[in-house]
């Protein structure tokens, strides 16, 4: 199936160079080199063929800048890397934001970090940075930022108009779950437009990665996505393993799967508590935290920390699980299964909750590709896209589970999908525990100072919010030449303005709560 699509791409695209890529080695099926002028045509082709924009970023090779577009399909895995060289002295490229809405943000990000201008982009302003930055942060050589480019979003100082007013939701506001700021233009209780303002938690993890060795970067992923720390920890570790070809013992893979799924449940429970709180019901929060504590206790025994885990190592784990781990996890599964009916009664059985969540914040399935949404957010619209099924990592190919999907893509569907996913995670844990093999928990003789071979690799895991991907370019040194994080909340949040528009403020806040966004992940 993948072969057929690749053939079609090769037959249809003109004026481009194809480089066959080995999926096993690099994580993508095909690499396409496009002239800058041909970008819009090529991108339009991918759009017509129902590809979604997985990621868009830039790599600085000093002589030239390389724009990298990743396209993928929801139906079956077919990852295509499209690259285009841009002149480093005067970098200009055509925008693709008219084909893929998500490119709006990706291009703004590239503009502020690399100084690439996108021709035709409607709003080339800063997304994360402030005006005080003198040099483009991700350029390899010091390139000063011209003063006229230090543009912040216009909505920082919105112009009041007649019959409407602006309200700042955040950065300090009870409903935004962190330091997200949304500038909302309102007419009475109705929202005319909403514009997220990012960057309050921007820490430049991608730059940090370039300045430290692969091992030293280990604690960082947990800070990118704190509720799902292990899942991003796995993304980083597995990427490096793929790059260096480090084998992982089977026992380690099983334990990785179990702990990751526990972490996923903990993350979903955090959301399960916070979402009704956005609707005004504060009690479910405490109940969800009660359950979450049980998971944290188990993971604390194993990893030594309760929130920002750093447990996986290249070639295995930091240490083996304790004797009580299996029993404790089994006890937790039993407890959690008894709790689901209670949540059903407490939350789903509440008529006010259902009336608030049903039919609000509807996200259409057809829009998903424009934004590259992933995770429970896109599954609620009925697209059964899950990295654990699409390209199984760890031991997800050896356990039996389904992908829960919704139908309407509204807030209650997102709720149902996440609750069903928790049940599915319990099923995965149960099977993995039963199959847990004895043996070593890590590969011996992994060098302390990793020097991966030259090349690049893309590796994705299914975090609790969607596809978390890592793209690493190695130049044979002990630090990555470029490390790119593709985070799910970023592309999911981009859909918020369209979902909020024309709706009541109360609905918009419920919708924002249903995204399960993590601000450090968006800002990186």
């Amino acid at each position, binding site marked *: 199936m993948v072969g057929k699509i690749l053939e079609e791409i090769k037959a249809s695209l003109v004026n481009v160079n194809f480089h066959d890529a080995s999926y096993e080695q690099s994580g993508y099926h095909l690499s396409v080199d496009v002239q800058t002028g041909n970008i819009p045509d090529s991108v339009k082709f991918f759009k017509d063929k129902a590809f979604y924009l997985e990621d868009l970023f830039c790599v600085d090779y000093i002589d030239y800048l390389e724009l990298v577009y990743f396209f993928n399909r929801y139906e079956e895995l077919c990852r295509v890397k499209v690259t285009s060289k841009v002149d480093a002295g005067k970098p200009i490229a055509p925008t693709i934001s008219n084909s893929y809405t998500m490119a709006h943000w990706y291009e703004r990000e590239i503009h502020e970090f690399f100084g690439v201008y996108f021709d035709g982009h409607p709003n080339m302003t800063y997304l994360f940075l402030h005006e005080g930055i003198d040099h483009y942060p991700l350029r390899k050589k010091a390139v000063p930022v011209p003063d006229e480019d230090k543009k912040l979003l216009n909505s920082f100082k919105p112009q009041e108009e007649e019959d409407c*007013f602006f*309200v700042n939701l955040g950065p300090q*506001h*009870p*409903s935004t779950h962190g330091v997200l700021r949304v500038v909302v233009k309102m007419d009475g*209780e109705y929202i005319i437009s909403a514009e997220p303002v990012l960057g309050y938690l921007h820490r430049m993890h991608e730059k940090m990665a370039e300045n430290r060795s692969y091992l030293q970067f280990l604690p960082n992923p947990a800070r990118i996505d704190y509720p799902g720390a292990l899942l991003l920890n796995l993304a980083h570790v597995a990427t490096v393993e793929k790059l260096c070809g480090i084998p992982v013992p089977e026992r380690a893979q099983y334990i990785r799967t179990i702990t990751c799924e526990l972490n996923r449940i903990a993350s979903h429970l955090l959301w399960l508590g916070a979402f*009704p*709180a*956005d*609707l*005004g*019901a*504060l*009690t479910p*929060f*405490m*109940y969800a935290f*009660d359950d979450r504590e049980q998971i944290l206790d188990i993971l604390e025994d194993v990893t030594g920390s309760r929130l920002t885990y750093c447990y996986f190592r290249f070639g295995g784990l930091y240490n083996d699980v304790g004797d009580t781990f299996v029993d404790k996890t089994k006890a937790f599964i039993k407890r959690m299964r008894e709790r689901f009916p209670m949540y059903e009664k407490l939350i789903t059985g*509440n008529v*006010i*909750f259902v*009336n*608030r969540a049903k039919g609000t914040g509807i996200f259409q399935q057809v829009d998903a590709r424009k934004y590259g949404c992933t995770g429970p957010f896109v599954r609620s619209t009925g697209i059964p896209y899950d990295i654990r099924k699409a390209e199984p990592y760890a031991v997800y190919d050896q356990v039996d589970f389904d992908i829960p999907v919704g139908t309407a893509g509204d807030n209650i569907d997102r709720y149902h999908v996440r609750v069903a996913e928790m049940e599915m995670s319990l099923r995965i844990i149960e099977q993995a525990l039963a199959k847990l093999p004895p043996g070593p928990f890590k590969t011996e003789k992994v060098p302390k100072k990793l020097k991966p071979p030259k090349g690049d690799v893309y590796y994705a895991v299914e975090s609790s919010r969607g596809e978390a991907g890592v793209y690493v370019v190695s130049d044979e040194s002990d630090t990555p030449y470029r490390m790119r994080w593709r985070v799910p909340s970023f592309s999911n949040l981009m859909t918020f303005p369209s979902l909020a528009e024309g709706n*009541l*403020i*109360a*609905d918009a*806040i419920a919708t924002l*709560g249903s995204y399960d966004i993590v601000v450090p992940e968006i800002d990186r």
Partner: protein
Amino acid sequence: MKTINNIIELVGWEAIKLLIGLIGVLVVVVVNALVLTWAERKVSGHMQRRIGPKEVGPCGMLQPIADTIKLIAKELLTPQNVERPLYFLAPVIVFIPVMVSFVVIPFDAYLQVKDINVGILVILAFSSLSVLSILLAGWGSNNKYSLIGSVRSVAQNIAYEIPLLLALLAVVLMTNSLSLRDIVESQKGLWYIVSQPIAFLVFFIAGVAETNRTPFDLPEAESELVAGFHTEYSGMRFALFFLAEYTNIFIICAITTTFFLGGYHGPILPGFVWFFGKTYLLVFVILWFRWTFPRVRFDQLLNFSWKLLIPVSLLNLIVTGGILKL
């Protein structure tokens, strides 16, 4: 003794009684607010698998007093750009109607400050005034959240005052009196909750909405409007809003008790024990609502009143009138 007699002669026995009653009302208001803050925290704690306050006094019972001292000791911050007269006036105005309502409530057969033959009208008239102070607070704060909160509050109060009145009218029709004492006395045999169950439900729901409590707490919707109309208030000014809210809850429950639960009637125990027992039971129900329900949306809130509560209570009134005529 002689001077006291002189004073009594000078101002009249009635006035003295009223004065003592008013002082009593003040005490009840303050003590009630203290008890309710403690109860709310305890109830919410136990509903959320916590235990609530426990450090200050036995079971944390002195916690409200510690909180009050903190609030009194706080500096009164006035934000810049507020509409000063309105901003200062609002917390004062919010408190007056609340006090007046207490005057006519019969706590026991002989425990009532003043029985007025239009007692219920006094309560309803003055409780509608509290919305004025919310509007002043929202407007005077010069804050968008406050303004949205207060505008919501006005729309909500207007919408829910109508079913509130219509539900009470059904009971008034049955007793032929607006005096609260007469209404209680006529429930000696049968409580009106039995003969007027629909009116009871409508009144209680509308009452919860009038007091701005969850699920109708839109004027101060935390996740949307930060704290709604009292976002900019702190210290004792905030405490006055707080005090008024809890007193309003008590009044709504007290009126429900008076109109539908037989007031101070009850076997064996003295009347005021029954009265307070029934009232606090209803207060508990309102607290229970808050810690179980999410918040309704604004359009749902208004639809619920205009499309359901008002027609139902009107129909109830017509049927009651019809039966009485027969």
